[in-house]
């Protein structure tokens, strides 16, 4: 039986004739902390809005906790916590009124935990939401989302607009919550270090497609950046498949290769290089390679290799 908490099937979305999402397929299993990456305007928020039933797909279907997300029953909504981009909440409400509303409209409410969060954040209860700073609103949003003890927590670029300290505080709390609760989390961001910190599986959206969907370790294993030095000049007939990027000087060659494997190592060894050292790649480096339009086919190859 399919135990995926989030299931996206061939999701297509057009805005004013422009294709934003082009056949996204994604399954997120229970207990997974999934980091959704993409550049600004890549379609991360659109996916989340469709999942929450706030927007509708042009084609395809999305399921949350086994139910069609365009017709989510209220009870299913009650099992999902959401921290949305911009932390809009209800701007003209006082904080304590908003808390009461959320409490009244929740299926369950962990008051002790909520009080603990409010004390930790030192949120002023008598001020209007619009008078709070972006950081405070983010904290309030997270506290409200966590108080209902959700099975699924959706965080849509929650650290957007926060300063470094607020972002760190937010992420530390998120990490703490994740470690303690072990629930399914969909975390969207364009700040790679944030995702790298908390996600155990990542997806990268580029040009409306999900070009990468694997664990962080798998991704780092598959994409290698090598500095190869030859005794004389770089051989002209050196050919490796799935080269993402290549830079050659007289004796030195720096290449980024997708799906690095022993066969490729053997091919390289036949050219007897003087040295071959791996240059460590951060997620940011991989992200830039994968989302670059020039190398899009390579990204697809990574995904094809994963599915194979």
């Amino acid at each position, binding site marked *: 039986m399919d135990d995926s908490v989030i299931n996206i099937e061939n999701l297509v979305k057009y805005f004013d004739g422009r294709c934003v999402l082009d056949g996204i397929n994604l399954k997120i299993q229970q207990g997974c902390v999934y980091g959704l990456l993409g550049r600004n305007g890549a379609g991360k928020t659109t996916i989340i*809005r469709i999942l*929450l*039933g*706030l*927007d*509708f797909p042009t084609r395809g279907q999305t399921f949350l906790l086994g139910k069609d997300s365009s017709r*989510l*029953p*209220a*009870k299913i*909504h*009650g099992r*999902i916590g*959401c921290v*949305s981009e911009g932390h*809009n*909440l*209800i*701007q*003209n409400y006082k904080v304590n009124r908003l808390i009461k*509303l*959320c409490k*009244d*409209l*929740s*299926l369950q409410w962990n008051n002790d935990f909520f009080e603990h969060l409010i004390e930790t954040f030192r949120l002023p209860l008598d001020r209007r939401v619009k008078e709070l700073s972006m950081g405070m609103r983010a904290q309030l949003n997270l506290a409200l989302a966590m108080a*209902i003890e959700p099975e699924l927590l959706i965080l849509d670029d929650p650290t957007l607009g926060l300063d470094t300290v607020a972002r760190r505080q937010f992420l530390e709390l998120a990490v703490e919550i994740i470690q303690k609760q072990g629930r399914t989390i969909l975390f969207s961001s364009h700040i790679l270090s944030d995702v790298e910190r908390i996600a155990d599986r990542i997806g990268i959206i580029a040009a409306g497609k999900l070009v990468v969907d694997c664990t962080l370790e798998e991704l780092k294993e598959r994409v290698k950046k090598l500095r190869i030095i030859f005794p004389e000049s770089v051989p002209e007939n050196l050919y490796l498949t799935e080269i993402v990027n290549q830079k050659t000087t007289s004796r030195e060659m720096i290449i980024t290769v997708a799906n690095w494997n022993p066969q490729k190592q053997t091919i390289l060894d036949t050219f007897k290089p003087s040295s071959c050292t791996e240059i460590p790649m951060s997620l940011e480096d991989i992200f830039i390679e994968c989302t670059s339009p020039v190398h899009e086919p390579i990204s697809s190859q990574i995904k094809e290799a994963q599915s194979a």
Partner: protein
Amino acid sequence: MLNIIMLIKREIKDNIAFLLVTISFSLILAVFMVSMTLQSDTLIDLIIYDTGVYIVVFLILAINFSAMGITQMYLDRTRRISAYLSTLSVNRNQILIARIITGILTIFVFFVPIFITGAYQASVLNGPIPTYPTLLIKMFFISFLISFACYCIGLQTGWNSGMIAPIFGGIFLSCIFVTLVLIKGFYSEIIALLLIFIIAILINIRCTFKTKSL
């Protein structure tokens, strides 16, 4: 069910100004009707005075109900209230139902005291018009339907983009509607016409609210 009650409570708090205006006008009219009952020499005088003031107050409140509908939907759209509420354990249907029930309650707040006062007048004065109680019920029922239709026009126009067009469009439509009914009179046919209009506009509101992005 509990969620709908909470949502109604929220709507009432958010639109308390409209409720207060309605209560004020309702009480003013009720006091006026009682004082006229005690002071008028003839029943005809009473009916003329009552009807005159009733029409003025009713016109003001029809605009009030229309403005309430516009405000509810306009603020919802601009402040993205439903977008946030939809992330809690409620769905769009419940939000819309709570909103409409709040509108109906506000309209009732106006009509209940007036209806009681009218019934009091009918019991005090045994006038020469035997059909007075029936006419009274029909008049109040049609007035209620007109108010609700105006409120629905407000809901419909408030969801449109822009600010000027929805407000003036809604008020203009409400005025035309009220005037039309006043000219044609309180006939039974108008009930059917109003019911069809209300059902059609409610279906349209529901479809729009359910299918639009929040």
